[in-house]
């Protein structure tokens, strides 16, 4: 009888799957993003809505919101970052364990938004490296979900093994950040 089973057959090939380390690491990472809600203004309300049953962020494997930076790997900056608060945002970011990502949710976190003023930082990317920016004032929960899925795609493309062995991810990012700020 002809063998029609085209899938992996453990009886023939043993309990082995051949793949790349990056693919496995990224697959694990991107399906267990633990966000840290950095709720600073009204965007945080939409962030809460995204966590609620109607929009249900857990459909995409990132529902474990942790309010301690030690237990989170994705900071969602939701709201207006004032200069007085910038120090706190930066410190909480530094307390998060590697690997870590940042989503700037909404116009204020991305660029300062409508607050062109003496008190408001003109974009949180001046102090921490941002992976995904979400437009909107505030963005709808669907926009945040889309951003998180885009972040998952980005995590899926990372050279995780190289970063693990080189341990240079953070300094490199910081240097790039400092360079970007100096140029502007």
């Amino acid at each position, binding site marked *: 009888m002809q063998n029609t089973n085209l899938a992996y057959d453990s009886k023939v090939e043993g309990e082995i799957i051949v793949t790349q380390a990056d693919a496995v690491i990224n697959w694990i990472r991107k399906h267990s993003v633990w966000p840290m809600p950095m709720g600073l203004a009204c965007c945080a309300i939409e962030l809460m809505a995204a966590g609620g049953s109607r929009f249900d962020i857990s459909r995409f494997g990132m529902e474990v919101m942790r309010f301690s930076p030690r237990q989170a790997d994705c900071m969602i900056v939701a709201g207006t970052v004032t200069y007085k608060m910038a120090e706190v945002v930066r410190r909480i970011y530094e307390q998060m364990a590697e690997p870590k990502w940042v989503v700037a949710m909404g116009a204020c976190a991305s660029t300062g938004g409508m607050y062109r003023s003496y008190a408001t930082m003109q974009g949180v990317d001046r102090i921490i490296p941002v992976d995904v920016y979400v437009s909107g004032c505030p963005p709808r929960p669907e926009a945040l979900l889309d951003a998180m899925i885009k972040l998952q795609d980005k995590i899926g493309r990372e050279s995780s093994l190289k970063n693990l062995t080189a341990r240079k991810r953070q300094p490199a990012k910081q240097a790039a950040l400092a360079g970007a*700020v100096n140029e502007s």
Partner: protein
Amino acid sequence: MAQSELAQFQERFDYLTERPSSDHLAVNCPPEKLVEFTTALRDDFGYDMLIDVTAVDWDAQSPRFTGIYHLLSTTKHEYLRIAVACPDDIHPSLPSLTSVFAAANWHERETYDLMGIHYAGHPNLRRILMWDAYPYHPLRKDFPLAGIEVPLPAADVAEATQAKVIAAPMMGGPFVSSGDGTMDQTEPRARDESWTEERERPNDRAEKSESSTDLAR
């Protein structure tokens, strides 16, 4: 009602003058009499709630700063506004009302923070909105709308990120009307603040052209 109340006030406090007002009764009061007057308002006239403490910066006029107090009577349902001119234009100072109304505490801290009015006798006169080391009082008329460049409050964060408190570009923001034409033509007050990332500030452009001529020489 309001007129008879003013007459009652003036009968007892001859230093009060009526202040033009489009809504509630408003009186002018000299600063050294403010505590006495508000204590009497609270105890004898039923004005038992301090609604707001703020100030006006009259820019080039003298007296430059006027402290404003809004009181509410929860029994008569009447508002009263008290205006107190600060005698000193350079270091404006007013007596603190914290001994009369506990609500004055944070209100006076806010007015101190944003307008720079010193409240004598305040138990804890620190900034409340801006950070402690901030050198300016942002709601004063001579403070530009966009802000002034200063270091970030946290030195270690500033060192790690090279970030600064910058003057924010006003163009495209909500606090300036666009009108017809570019903003630096329609809003003279915003002339120096009408730059974007692409288009430089007029003053910077002038300085740059000067320095380039220096180089040419």
